């Protein structure tokens, strides 16, 4: 499979405080990569660097061999190709659900309105929210909002999807409905980079696990390798923290 995304020697610092140091990663088409690690280890910053929401101090991010970060000014075409879903959904509160979904394809990609609304309806139907298309975000539960946010990213036909702790703000019983949507996307063969704290989900969805700590990728492997035969002590300790004995 061809490489979609390549990250080379990525270095990111906030006001001299290093957050990411020499991070390297290659993502192949159709691959689901899950990034886990303790809070503050740089996972979210890593995702944000990939689609240019953060500037970087060294290294580069390539999408199909085209450099997109370091710090290119106009990232609009990049943003179309890289979809991102955030922890806090960030739907546009003044727009109805279907308008939330249809806004970017119409304004950014200049697609025909009727086509966009048709596809938006189909996608909303797929995540079970067609009935809510004329509601406002405030009228939806957290899980529903997050499913809309996923649809809003999908309709742009991105080549890769980034998920930044998309279930972290949800009530436990709403986590499943969101994760199932992501799981079904994985089965479709979509390329995804997922940051999560849901270990069981990581196990189920990942082709590859990256464990980050202190701004480095500390361990990397298939889910079986990583969860059954954890190599590093740091990762072992991290995984133990999820167990109650």
């Amino acid at each position, binding site marked *: 499979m061809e490489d979609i995304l390549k990250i080379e020697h990525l270095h990111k610092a906030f006001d001299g405080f290093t957050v990411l140091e020499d991070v390297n990663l290659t993502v192949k088409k159709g691959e689901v990569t899950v990034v886990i690690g303790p809070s503050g280890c740089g996972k979210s910053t890593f995702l944000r660097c990939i689609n240019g*929401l953060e500037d970087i101090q060294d290294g580069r991010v390539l999408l199909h061999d085209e450099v997109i970060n370091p710090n290119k000014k106009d990232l609009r075409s990049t*943003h179309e190709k890289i979809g991102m879903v955030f922890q806090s959904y960030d739907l546009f*509160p003044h*727009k*109805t659900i279907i308008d939330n979904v249809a806004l970017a394809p119409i*304004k950014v990609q200049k697609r025909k309105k009727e086509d966009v609304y048709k596809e938006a309806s189909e996608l909303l139907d797929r995540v079970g929210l067609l009935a809510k298309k004329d509601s*406002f975000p*405030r009228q939806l539960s957290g899980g529903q909002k997050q499913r809309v946010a996923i649809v809003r*990213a999908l309709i*742009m036909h991105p080549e890769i999807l980034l998920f930044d702790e998309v279930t972290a703000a949800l009530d436990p019983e709403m986590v499943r409905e969101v994760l199932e949507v992501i799981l079904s996307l994985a089965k479709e063969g979509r390329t995804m980079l997922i940051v999560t704290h849901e270990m069981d989900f990581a196990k189920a969805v990942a082709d590859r696990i990256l464990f980050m700590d202190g701004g480095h990728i500390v361990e990397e492997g298939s889910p079986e390798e990583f969860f059954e035969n954890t190599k590093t002590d740091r990762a072992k300790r991290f995984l133990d923290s999820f167990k109650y004995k």
Partner: protein
Amino acid sequence: MNTEAIVSYLPLYKEAFVLTIKIGWLGIALAFAIGIVSAFILYFNIPVLSKVIKAYVELFRNTPLLVQLFFIYFGLPKMGIDISSQVCGCLGLGLLGGSYMAETFRSGLCAIANTQIESATALGMSKSQIFIHIILPQAFTISITALIANVIFLLKETSVFSAISLMDLMFTAKDLIGLYYNTTECLLLLVLFYILMLLPVSFLGNLIEKKVRFGIFGD
């Protein structure tokens, strides 16, 4: 109560009412224009201009309209600029209102969370698209209550126009009291005409507020 006097004063009040509304709303329109432009300059922190706007806002928010009107009405002619009392009223109200509107709009713009801008950026929207489709509509919704309050406040401020010999409601009432000593009747008419001027604004304002706020706030 002298009803005969009331009836005979009515045409004068009506005339003053029309004039007050005319100057009042023209001034408010000017205030909106100044306020929006000023808020944009402050929000985007445009060099030099934003300093000028800040000084303007502080100057006009911290001085009474009456004083501002005196400066415009008696000051400008001394600099060789002739100005009618009607233009002076409009300008004064516009400048005072502009300083209030600027801060109201700006607070609305600043209330939009950065995550809104980020999620729109992640969808590939340009800065101007984000401003037009994401920031502006939400900022307007957030500021609408304060904007309507400003409009009502400014309409009431027209009552100092009498000081620059504009024949507004207050001027007419004072004039008639001075001439005929029917104080009760004149003041009653004054109150009634102010209510007639402001009640519809309040009512309409509530309707607009309800409609505009429905999407985001639902109340």
